[in-house]
Protein backbone atom coordinates (compact mmCIF):
# COMPACT_ATOMS: atom_id res chain seq x y z
CA UNK A 1 0.00 0.00 0.00
CA UNK A 2 2.74 2.42 0.92
CA UNK A 3 4.30 1.81 -2.51
CA UNK A 4 1.11 3.05 -4.09
CA UNK A 5 1.15 6.12 -1.87
CA UNK A 6 4.77 6.82 -2.69
CA UNK A 7 4.11 6.38 -6.38
CA UNK A 8 1.25 8.88 -6.30
CA UNK A 9 3.33 11.34 -4.31
CA UNK A 10 6.02 11.10 -6.95
CA UNK A 11 3.59 12.12 -9.68
CA UNK A 12 2.44 15.17 -7.75
CA UNK A 13 2.97 18.70 -8.90
CA UNK A 14 2.66 19.02 -12.59
CA UNK A 15 2.64 21.26 -15.58
CA UNK A 16 2.49 24.98 -15.94
CA UNK A 17 5.89 25.88 -14.57
CA UNK A 18 6.80 27.46 -17.91
CA UNK A 19 4.17 30.15 -17.52
CA UNK A 20 5.07 30.66 -13.88
CA UNK A 21 8.69 31.22 -14.91
CA UNK A 22 7.68 33.74 -17.57
CA UNK A 23 5.63 35.68 -15.05
CA UNK A 24 8.50 35.63 -12.62
CA UNK A 25 10.90 37.03 -15.23
CA UNK A 26 8.48 39.86 -15.99
CA UNK A 27 8.19 40.67 -12.28
CA UNK A 28 11.95 40.56 -11.79
CA UNK A 29 12.28 43.10 -14.56
CA UNK A 30 9.53 45.35 -13.16
CA UNK A 31 11.07 45.17 -9.71
CA UNK A 32 14.46 46.23 -11.09
CA UNK A 33 16.01 43.08 -9.70
CA UNK A 34 17.61 42.21 -12.98
CA UNK A 35 21.25 43.30 -12.98
CA UNK A 36 22.17 41.54 -16.22
CA UNK A 37 19.62 40.56 -18.88
CA UNK A 38 20.66 38.37 -21.76
CA UNK A 39 19.33 36.79 -24.92
CA UNK A 40 20.53 35.07 -28.03
CA UNK A 41 20.78 36.91 -31.31
CA UNK A 42 21.35 35.47 -34.74
CA UNK A 43 24.16 36.32 -37.08
CA UNK A 44 25.40 34.91 -40.40
CA UNK A 45 28.34 33.48 -38.45
CA UNK A 46 26.39 31.72 -35.74
CA UNK A 47 24.44 32.67 -32.64
CA UNK A 48 25.50 35.56 -30.47
CA UNK A 49 24.90 36.03 -26.80
CA UNK A 50 23.97 39.62 -26.02
CA UNK A 51 23.77 40.95 -22.47
CA UNK A 52 22.77 44.30 -21.02
CA UNK A 53 22.77 45.98 -17.63
CA UNK A 54 20.38 48.85 -16.86
CA UNK A 55 23.17 51.11 -18.16
CA UNK A 56 23.43 49.51 -21.57
CA UNK A 57 24.89 46.73 -23.68
CA UNK A 58 27.70 45.10 -21.73
CA UNK A 59 28.62 41.96 -23.66
CA UNK A 60 28.42 40.40 -27.10
CA UNK A 61 29.72 36.81 -27.18
CA UNK A 62 30.30 34.67 -30.24
CA UNK A 63 28.75 31.31 -29.50
CA UNK A 64 30.51 29.68 -32.44
CA UNK A 65 33.82 30.19 -30.65
CA UNK A 66 32.81 30.17 -26.99
CA UNK A 67 30.48 28.41 -24.62
CA UNK A 68 27.31 30.18 -23.45
CA UNK A 69 27.79 29.02 -19.85
CA UNK A 70 31.30 30.43 -19.81
CA UNK A 71 30.02 33.83 -20.94
CA UNK A 72 27.23 33.80 -18.34
CA UNK A 73 29.58 32.70 -15.57
CA UNK A 74 31.88 35.56 -16.43
CA UNK A 75 28.99 38.05 -16.23
CA UNK A 76 27.88 36.56 -12.90
CA UNK A 77 31.38 36.81 -11.47
CA UNK A 78 32.41 40.18 -12.83
CA UNK A 79 29.13 42.13 -12.75
CA UNK A 80 26.43 40.46 -10.66
CA UNK A 81 25.05 36.95 -10.22
CA UNK A 82 21.55 38.36 -10.82
CA UNK A 83 21.73 37.26 -14.44
CA UNK A 84 18.48 36.32 -16.17
CA UNK A 85 17.28 35.59 -19.66
CA UNK A 86 15.15 38.49 -20.85
CA UNK A 87 14.82 38.80 -24.61
CA UNK A 88 12.57 41.88 -24.35
CA UNK A 89 15.37 43.94 -22.78
CA UNK A 90 17.52 43.14 -25.82
CA UNK A 91 15.01 43.62 -28.62
CA UNK A 92 16.56 46.86 -29.77
CA UNK A 93 20.09 45.43 -29.72
CA UNK A 94 19.00 42.42 -31.71
CA UNK A 95 17.13 44.52 -34.25
CA UNK A 96 20.13 46.77 -34.83
CA UNK A 97 22.46 43.78 -35.16
CA UNK A 98 20.11 42.24 -37.76
CA UNK A 99 20.14 45.47 -39.72
CA UNK A 100 23.91 45.63 -39.54
CA UNK A 101 24.42 42.08 -40.79
CA UNK A 102 21.94 42.86 -43.58
CA UNK A 103 24.03 45.84 -44.66
CA UNK A 104 21.21 48.21 -43.73
CA UNK A 105 22.88 49.82 -40.73
CA UNK A 106 26.20 51.64 -40.67
CA UNK A 107 26.28 52.76 -37.06
CA UNK A 108 24.76 51.52 -33.85
CA UNK A 109 22.58 53.73 -31.73
CA UNK A 110 22.93 51.89 -28.46
CA UNK A 111 24.00 52.77 -24.96
CA UNK A 112 26.91 50.63 -23.83
CA UNK A 113 28.05 49.73 -20.33
CA UNK A 114 31.83 49.48 -20.27
CA UNK A 115 31.99 47.84 -16.86
CA UNK A 116 34.08 44.98 -18.25
CA UNK A 117 36.72 47.30 -19.73
CA UNK A 118 39.52 48.65 -17.55
CA UNK A 119 42.63 50.78 -17.73
CA UNK A 120 44.35 51.43 -21.03
CA UNK A 121 41.80 49.21 -22.79
CA UNK A 122 39.16 51.89 -22.13
CA UNK A 123 41.11 54.39 -24.17
CA UNK A 124 41.89 51.88 -26.91
CA UNK A 125 38.27 50.77 -27.26
CA UNK A 126 36.98 54.34 -27.06
CA UNK A 127 39.19 55.17 -30.06
CA UNK A 128 38.14 51.98 -31.81
CA UNK A 129 34.49 52.96 -31.40
CA UNK A 130 35.24 56.08 -33.50
CA UNK A 131 36.56 54.23 -36.56
CA UNK A 132 33.92 54.76 -39.25
CA UNK A 133 32.07 51.99 -41.03
CA UNK A 134 34.07 50.60 -43.93
CA UNK A 135 37.47 51.95 -42.82
CA UNK A 136 40.21 50.61 -40.58
CA UNK A 137 43.32 51.45 -38.60
CA UNK A 138 46.40 49.45 -37.57
CA UNK A 139 47.09 48.40 -33.97
CA UNK A 140 49.87 50.99 -33.87
CA UNK A 141 47.56 53.75 -35.04
CA UNK A 142 44.94 52.90 -32.46
CA UNK A 143 47.62 52.80 -29.77
CA UNK A 144 48.76 56.25 -30.88
CA UNK A 145 45.24 57.65 -30.79
CA UNK A 146 44.82 56.15 -27.34
CA UNK A 147 47.85 58.21 -26.29
CA UNK A 148 50.71 55.71 -26.44
CA UNK A 149 52.11 55.06 -29.94
CA UNK A 150 54.50 52.37 -28.68
CA UNK A 151 51.79 50.35 -27.00
CA UNK A 152 50.62 48.45 -30.05
CA UNK A 153 50.90 45.14 -28.18
CA UNK A 154 48.80 46.44 -25.29
CA UNK A 155 46.35 47.77 -27.86
CA UNK A 156 46.24 44.33 -29.45
CA UNK A 157 45.46 42.61 -26.19
CA UNK A 158 42.82 45.22 -25.30
CA UNK A 159 41.15 44.57 -28.65
CA UNK A 160 41.41 40.81 -28.21
CA UNK A 161 39.48 41.16 -24.95
CA UNK A 162 36.85 43.54 -26.32
CA UNK A 163 33.67 42.50 -24.47
CA UNK A 164 31.36 44.20 -27.00
CA UNK A 165 32.64 43.19 -30.47
CA UNK A 166 30.71 44.30 -33.58
CA UNK A 167 29.26 47.27 -31.69
CA UNK A 168 32.74 48.36 -30.63
CA UNK A 169 34.18 47.48 -34.03
CA UNK A 170 37.50 45.85 -33.17
CA UNK A 171 37.30 44.11 -36.55
CA UNK A 172 38.29 47.48 -38.03
CA UNK A 173 41.78 47.24 -36.52
CA UNK A 174 44.30 45.34 -38.61
CA UNK A 175 47.96 44.50 -38.49
CA UNK A 176 50.20 46.74 -40.55
CA UNK A 177 50.16 46.04 -44.26
CA UNK A 178 46.47 45.22 -44.18
CA UNK A 179 47.03 41.82 -42.61
CA UNK A 180 43.73 40.77 -41.07
CA UNK A 181 45.15 39.46 -37.78
CA UNK A 182 43.26 37.71 -35.04
CA UNK A 183 39.61 38.01 -34.08
CA UNK A 184 37.43 36.56 -31.33
CA UNK A 185 35.05 35.16 -33.94
CA UNK A 186 37.91 33.88 -36.09
CA UNK A 187 39.92 35.65 -38.83
CA UNK A 188 37.45 34.60 -41.50
CA UNK A 189 34.61 36.36 -39.73
CA UNK A 190 36.76 39.47 -39.45
CA UNK A 191 37.50 39.43 -43.19
CA UNK A 192 33.82 38.93 -44.01
CA UNK A 193 32.74 41.79 -41.74
CA UNK A 194 35.22 44.08 -43.49
CA UNK A 195 33.95 42.86 -46.86
CA UNK A 196 30.35 43.47 -45.74
CA UNK A 197 31.31 47.03 -44.93
CA UNK A 198 33.06 47.41 -48.29
CA UNK A 199 36.43 48.13 -46.67
CA UNK A 200 39.32 48.24 -49.15
CA UNK A 201 41.78 45.96 -47.42
CA UNK A 202 45.00 45.79 -49.43
CA UNK A 203 46.63 42.65 -48.13
CA UNK A 204 45.08 39.28 -47.44
CA UNK A 205 45.66 37.24 -44.34
Amino acid at each position, binding site marked *: *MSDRIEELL*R*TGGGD*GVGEAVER*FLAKAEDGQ*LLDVAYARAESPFGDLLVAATPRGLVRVGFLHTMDEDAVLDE*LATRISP*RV*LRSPARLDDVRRQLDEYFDGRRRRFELRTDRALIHGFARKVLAQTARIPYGSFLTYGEVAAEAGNPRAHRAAGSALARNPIPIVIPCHRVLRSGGVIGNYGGGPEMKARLLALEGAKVAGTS
Partner: protein
Amino acid sequence: MTLPPFQALLDDHAEAIHRFLIGLVGPAEAEDCFQETFLAALRSYTRLREGSNLRAWLFTVARSKAMDAHRRSRRAPVPVAEPPEPRRSGNGGHGVEPVDGDLWAAVAALPEKQRAAVVLRFTCDLSHREIGRVLDCSDDAARRSVHEGVKRLREVWA
Protein backbone atom coordinates in the same frame (compact mmCIF):
# COMPACT_ATOMS: atom_id res chain seq x y z
CA MET B 1 33.37 29.26 -5.43
CA THR B 2 31.30 32.08 -6.84
CA LEU B 3 27.56 32.23 -7.31
CA PRO B 4 26.27 30.91 -10.63
CA PRO B 5 24.02 33.07 -12.83
CA PHE B 6 20.56 33.13 -11.25
CA GLN B 7 19.14 31.83 -14.52
CA ALA B 8 20.94 28.54 -13.86
CA LEU B 9 19.05 28.16 -10.56
CA LEU B 10 15.81 28.86 -12.33
CA ASP B 11 16.56 26.36 -15.10
CA ASP B 12 17.65 23.66 -12.68
CA HIS B 13 15.11 24.04 -9.88
CA ALA B 14 11.97 25.88 -11.02
CA GLU B 15 10.11 22.68 -11.76
CA ALA B 16 10.94 20.99 -8.47
CA ILE B 17 10.06 24.12 -6.49
CA HIS B 18 6.77 24.35 -8.34
CA ARG B 19 5.96 20.73 -7.51
CA PHE B 20 6.94 21.27 -3.90
CA LEU B 21 4.62 24.26 -3.59
CA ILE B 22 1.70 22.47 -5.24
CA GLY B 23 2.21 19.65 -2.76
CA LEU B 24 2.32 22.07 0.16
CA VAL B 25 -0.42 24.57 -0.63
CA GLY B 26 -2.32 23.24 -3.66
CA PRO B 27 -2.24 24.49 -7.24
CA ALA B 28 -4.24 27.69 -6.68
CA GLU B 29 -1.88 29.12 -4.03
CA ALA B 30 1.24 27.60 -5.55
CA GLU B 31 1.40 30.12 -8.35
CA ASP B 32 1.72 33.14 -6.05
CA CYS B 33 4.07 31.30 -3.72
CA PHE B 34 6.28 30.45 -6.68
CA GLN B 35 6.55 34.11 -7.67
CA GLU B 36 7.24 35.16 -4.09
CA THR B 37 9.85 32.44 -3.65
CA PHE B 38 11.92 33.35 -6.67
CA LEU B 39 11.56 37.10 -6.17
CA ALA B 40 12.72 36.78 -2.56
CA ALA B 41 15.55 34.49 -3.63
CA LEU B 42 16.64 36.89 -6.36
CA ARG B 43 16.51 39.81 -3.93
CA SER B 44 18.75 38.17 -1.35
CA TYR B 45 20.88 36.16 -3.80
CA THR B 46 23.85 38.52 -3.80
CA ARG B 47 24.07 38.36 -0.01
CA LEU B 48 24.26 34.58 0.07
CA ARG B 49 27.30 33.02 1.69
CA GLU B 50 29.61 31.26 -0.69
CA GLY B 51 29.41 27.50 -0.54
CA SER B 52 25.73 27.47 0.37
CA ASN B 53 23.69 24.56 -0.88
CA LEU B 54 21.64 26.53 -3.39
CA ARG B 55 18.96 23.92 -3.94
CA ALA B 56 18.29 23.45 -0.22
CA TRP B 57 18.26 27.23 0.19
CA LEU B 58 15.61 27.64 -2.53
CA PHE B 59 13.43 25.00 -0.90
CA THR B 60 13.83 26.75 2.44
CA VAL B 61 12.63 30.02 0.92
CA ALA B 62 9.73 28.21 -0.77
CA ARG B 63 8.70 26.57 2.47
CA SER B 64 8.59 29.87 4.29
CA LYS B 65 6.47 31.39 1.50
CA ALA B 66 4.11 28.41 1.75
CA MET B 67 3.79 28.95 5.51
CA ASP B 68 2.99 32.63 4.89
CA ALA B 69 0.29 31.60 2.44
CA HIS B 70 -1.17 29.22 5.01
CA ARG B 71 -1.31 31.93 7.64
CA ARG B 72 -3.00 34.24 5.14
CA SER B 73 -5.60 31.69 4.12
CA ARG B 74 -6.37 30.86 7.73
CA ARG B 75 -7.18 34.53 8.22
CA ALA B 76 -9.18 34.67 4.99
CA PRO B 77 -12.98 34.42 5.32
CA VAL B 78 -13.55 31.30 3.20
CA PRO B 79 -10.64 28.95 3.67
CA VAL B 80 -11.75 26.24 1.29
CA ALA B 81 -8.89 23.89 0.63
CA GLU B 82 -8.76 23.03 -3.03
CA PRO B 83 -7.13 19.67 -3.62
CA PRO B 84 -4.86 19.35 -6.64
CA GLU B 85 -6.43 17.95 -9.75
CA PRO B 86 -5.92 14.25 -10.23
CA ARG B 87 -3.17 13.55 -12.68
CA ARG B 88 -1.67 10.67 -14.56
CA SER B 89 -4.39 8.15 -13.94
CA GLY B 90 -3.84 5.27 -16.29
CA ASN B 91 -7.42 5.36 -17.49
CA GLY B 92 -7.91 8.94 -18.47
CA GLY B 93 -8.77 10.39 -15.11
CA HIS B 94 -12.15 8.91 -14.25
CA GLY B 95 -12.69 5.33 -13.25
CA VAL B 96 -11.98 2.49 -10.94
CA GLU B 97 -8.77 3.66 -9.34
CA PRO B 98 -8.98 5.70 -6.16
CA VAL B 99 -8.60 9.34 -7.23
CA ASP B 100 -5.24 10.58 -6.06
CA GLY B 101 -6.85 13.92 -5.23
CA ASP B 102 -7.99 12.20 -2.08
CA LEU B 103 -4.40 11.50 -1.25
CA TRP B 104 -3.46 15.16 -1.70
CA ALA B 105 -6.27 16.14 0.62
CA ALA B 106 -4.72 13.77 3.14
CA VAL B 107 -1.30 15.31 2.49
CA ALA B 108 -2.80 18.75 3.08
CA ALA B 109 -4.09 17.56 6.45
CA LEU B 110 -0.65 16.47 7.68
CA PRO B 111 1.22 18.61 10.22
CA GLU B 112 3.32 21.15 8.29
CA LYS B 113 6.70 19.56 8.93
CA GLN B 114 5.56 16.08 7.94
CA ARG B 115 3.84 17.44 4.87
CA ALA B 116 6.98 19.28 3.77
CA ALA B 117 9.12 16.21 4.50
CA VAL B 118 6.88 13.84 2.54
CA VAL B 119 6.60 16.15 -0.47
CA LEU B 120 10.35 16.84 -0.48
CA ARG B 121 11.15 13.16 -0.24
CA PHE B 122 8.81 11.76 -2.86
CA THR B 123 7.50 14.56 -5.06
CA CYS B 124 10.83 16.40 -5.25
CA ASP B 125 13.17 13.44 -4.73
CA LEU B 126 15.43 15.03 -2.12
CA SER B 127 17.68 12.94 0.11
CA HIS B 128 17.06 12.86 3.86
CA ARG B 129 20.18 14.89 4.29
CA GLU B 130 18.88 17.67 2.03
CA ILE B 131 15.47 17.51 3.66
CA GLY B 132 17.22 18.02 6.99
CA ARG B 133 18.83 21.17 5.62
CA VAL B 134 15.54 22.53 4.32
CA LEU B 135 13.66 21.76 7.55
CA ASP B 136 16.61 22.81 9.68
CA CYS B 137 16.86 19.52 11.52
CA SER B 138 19.11 16.45 11.55
CA ASP B 139 19.09 13.76 8.86
CA ASP B 140 17.50 11.41 11.38
CA ALA B 141 14.79 13.87 12.30
CA ALA B 142 14.07 14.38 8.59
CA ARG B 143 13.85 10.63 8.12
CA ARG B 144 11.44 10.38 11.04
CA SER B 145 9.21 13.14 9.65
CA VAL B 146 9.03 11.39 6.29
CA HIS B 147 8.30 8.08 7.96
CA GLU B 148 5.61 9.46 10.21
CA GLY B 149 4.01 11.37 7.38
CA VAL B 150 3.78 8.29 5.21
CA LYS B 151 2.50 6.25 8.14
CA ARG B 152 -0.23 8.78 8.74
CA LEU B 153 -1.16 8.77 5.04
CA ARG B 154 -1.37 5.02 5.11
CA GLU B 155 -3.82 5.23 8.00
CA VAL B 156 -6.17 7.72 6.40
CA TRP B 157 -5.81 6.80 2.74
CA ALA B 158 -6.53 3.17 2.07
